[in-house]
């Protein structure tokens, strides 16, 4: 199967999944206790006003009709309107998605910058104190809560040493890199720990394989063997994990955005839950899910680029 055919096939396969996702998010919002009309108007509102608001929100219609409206809106790219800030949810997504995506991508880059040298070092210096120290780092990275590491970094580098800003975003892309460094680093540490552990094991098992012996027997220099024959092959197994953890970072960004007060989708998701702004919760949840599906698709594609043996 060609790559294009594969992509089309995968996209078609995504349709039923997306449909179920849509139904789930729709039902989810309706399952939340409390009447949005009352939430909007306050508890002192007269029954008349509440009824008026309910019909304004379309809540007086039967559930299947509401679902029909939801689907047809969705088909037109309309995710509804925030009940609190009175802005279309799609506009909010457009405003906030870039920051979340940037943060996730930045975190992944940092994670790789940490992972590759550390795991090569650990594998080459196997069973020495260096290896032990790096393994200690991986256990710590897996076991410590990201939001706590974030706060400690904030206290140390933001408040005490004043090297980094304590939150918010910059005014230019270059400044954003500076502003987003601490949150991205916080997210990257946990992922780097998992990836390092995995890549170290992959490197060690690749080192024992025959093609590496052949390369050594040919008299290639140690560095060439390591970089061209060991690292490249071992990285392939890590690519799958990478996709998985990109999806994971998307979820983790919700918490880290809240810690660093970043105006991304995650911090708004949390504040919308607190404010019972269900349209936003519904729209954002759906966008997150689509984002992850797309990331998985891209990972599978990347897989075939990295490893030519894999036909899609």
């Amino acid at each position: 199967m060609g790559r294009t055919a594969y992509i089309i096939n995968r996209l078609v396969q995504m349709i039923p999944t997306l449909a179920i996702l849509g139904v789930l998010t729709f039902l989810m919002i309706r399952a939340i206790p409390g009447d949005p009309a009352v939430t909007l108007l306050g508890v002192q509102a007269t029954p008349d006003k509440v009824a008026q608001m309910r019909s304004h929100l379309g809540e007086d219609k039967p559930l299947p009709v509401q679902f029909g409206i939801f689907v047809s809106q969705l088909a037109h790219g309309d995710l509804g309107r925030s009940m609190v800030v009175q802005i279309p949810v799609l506009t909010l997504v457009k405003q906030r998605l870039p920051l979340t995506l940037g943060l996730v991508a930045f975190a992944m880059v940092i994670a790789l910058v940490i992972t590759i040298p550390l795991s090569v070092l650990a594998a080459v210096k196997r069973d020495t104190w260096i290896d032990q120290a790096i393994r200690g780092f991986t256990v710590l990275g897996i076991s410590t809560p990201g939001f706590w590491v974030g706060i400690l970094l904030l206290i140390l580098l933001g408040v005490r040493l004043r090297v980094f800003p304590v939150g918010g975003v910059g005014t230019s892309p270059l400044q954003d890199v500076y502003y987003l460094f601490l949150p991205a680093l916080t997210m990257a540490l946990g992922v780097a720990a998992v990836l390092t552990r995995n890549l170290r094991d992959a490197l060690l098992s690749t080192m024992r394989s025959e093609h590496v012996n052949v390369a050594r027997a040919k008299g290639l220099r140690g560095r060439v063997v390591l970089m061209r024959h060991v690292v490249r092959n071992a990285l392939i197994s890590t690519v799958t994990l990478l996709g998985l953890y990109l999806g994971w970072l998307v979820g983790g960004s919700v918490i880290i955005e809240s810690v660093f007060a970043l105006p991304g989708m995650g911090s708004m998701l949390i504040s919308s839950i607190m404010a019972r702004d269900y349209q936003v919760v519904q729209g954002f949840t759906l966008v997150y899910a689509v984002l992850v599906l797309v990331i998985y698709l891209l990972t599978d594609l990347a897989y075939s680029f990295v490893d030519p043996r894999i036909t899609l």
Partner: protein
Amino acid sequence: MSTLTTAPVTLERPLVERSRWQQIRRLARRNPTLVVGVVLVALVILVGVIGPFVAPYAPNLQNYEGAVQPPSLAHVLGTDKFGRDQLSRVLFGARIDLALGIVTALVPLAIGVAIGAVAGFYGGWVDTIFMRIIEIQVAFPFYVLLIAILAILGPGLLNMYYALILVGWVAFARLIRGEVLVAKNLEYAVAARTLGCSDRRIILRHLLPNVIGPALIFAMSVVVFNILAGAALGFLGLGVQPPTPEWGSMVADSREFMTSAWWLPAFPGLAIAIVGVAFSVLGDGLSNVLRGGTR
């Protein structure tokens, strides 16, 4: 065993029958990670059990004159904004965070093993429905799914249990399903069937003991993961509600004093990290046992 054939000397007792102490020593030599893990987890659980009895103060005892004090002899870990003793709160919190992590790993383990075994063994419509559920679930980022469920159920400790269990069983089921798919065609399973064993007996007595190892190890990382998740949700205000001492929400409460009172976020977070490391090391030790290696 080569030891038996090469030992012509008379022994006071047969070599194969080691005393329990010798067995433990041998295990400790071959798998120090496991021993360290067991000891750490035992200590952590001990703190959870006896913590409330050894805590110097009541966890919610307020004292406005002694609010936000740095660590001292009277308050080893300092006091929070209500003048509550932080050591006592961390000790009381151990129970809440540990119980959450352990229960929300074991219940999904049991549910997941049951569903995964049935789906893998029988295939058919059970398996089809199950695979659909997986597909849907992986599309949601873990935290977004948890947060969405908590948005429906409402914040709170009990709802956090429900949410983590609801989300957690799928991974176990997937793991067991995969293992059972392979194992049911292996010789011992086929032999059991040829001997006329019932499906129930094949699954419970033949397949599960052989495939449950990876799921148990995975459960250890789920304990870590769920303690972190529980703390993160507490941190976001979606989990345990005040004034219950829970480590994540303690870190969250400390944020307004971030610039001045480092001890407020530092110690509850450290407690989470210690518990996390304990279960991670235990999981590594168990996985060494499963792989049969020494490291």
